[in-house]
């Protein structure tokens, strides 16, 4: 079951404070690395990619970012999530000249994307549901966070 494999409560961090987007990426990468989801080099690869091809998604009120890197830096698929007490600036995927305030960061560690495309697609499409995204942003309980995402993802 893909959902259980990827979404782990221990990798959800709510209402965290960071200065810059690189700080969130470093923090979440380290959490993934400690649990052997990713290789040591994953973090730098994500930071590098974010510089060249940013992943901020503008949704309106609550915005998200989905940083990730090439599959060669990943051991097993996973996802680390942080909701940010104060939004942090990310550049937009579709227009990197613009920055947007991001409230939730989904750091994706992917292997074969074809296997996980349904999960990924349902995840990214859930972003367009404003009440869902506002709800998960408001939660300060990781168990409810996982349950809420689970309801949205087929």
């Amino acid at each position, binding site marked *: 079951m893909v959902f259980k494999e990827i979404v782990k409560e221990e990798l959800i961090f709510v209402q965290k404070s960071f200065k810059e987007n690189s700080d969130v990426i470093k923090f979440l990468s380290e959490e993934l690395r400690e649990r052997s989801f990713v290789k040591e080099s994953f973090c730098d690869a994500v930071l590098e*990619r974010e510089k*060249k*091809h940013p*992943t901020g*998604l503008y*949704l309106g009120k609550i915005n998200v970012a*989905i940083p*990730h*890197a*090439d*599959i060669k830096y990943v051991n097993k698929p996973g996802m680390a999530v942080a909701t940010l007490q104060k939004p942090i600036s990310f550049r937009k*995927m*579709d*227009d*990197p000249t613009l920055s947007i305030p991001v409230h939730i960061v989904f750091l*994706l560690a*992917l292997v074969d*994307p*074809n296997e996980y*495309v349904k999960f*990924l*697609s349902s995840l*990214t*499409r859930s*972003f*367009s549901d404003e009440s869902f995204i506002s709800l998960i942003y408001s939660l300060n309980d990781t168990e409810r966070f996982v349950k809420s995402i689970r309801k949205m993802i087929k």
Partner: protein
Amino acid sequence: MLRKRILVVCGTGIATSTVVARKLEEKLEEKGIDIETRQCKVAEVEGMLEKVDLIVATTPVPDNIKVPVVRTLAFLTGIGEDEAIEEITKKLKKKGG
């Protein structure tokens, strides 16, 4: 319309382009448009253009590309999907076929 070839472009050519490619196939099939997708990262676009009718990109692609481009996040987030499909259909029809 003959089978159309769409090149789906994103930053790494893996995660987002896979989501977009599968969604495009599903949506255009519903419209009765036969497509074939290929994926690449933005840095590889120029070498991937042979026989490509349209590029759908989630991120900016170089300006000098001769193939029509639709830049959209609609197939990722679902926001503005119908409009994006309309634009793609129009551009594919314009190419003749």
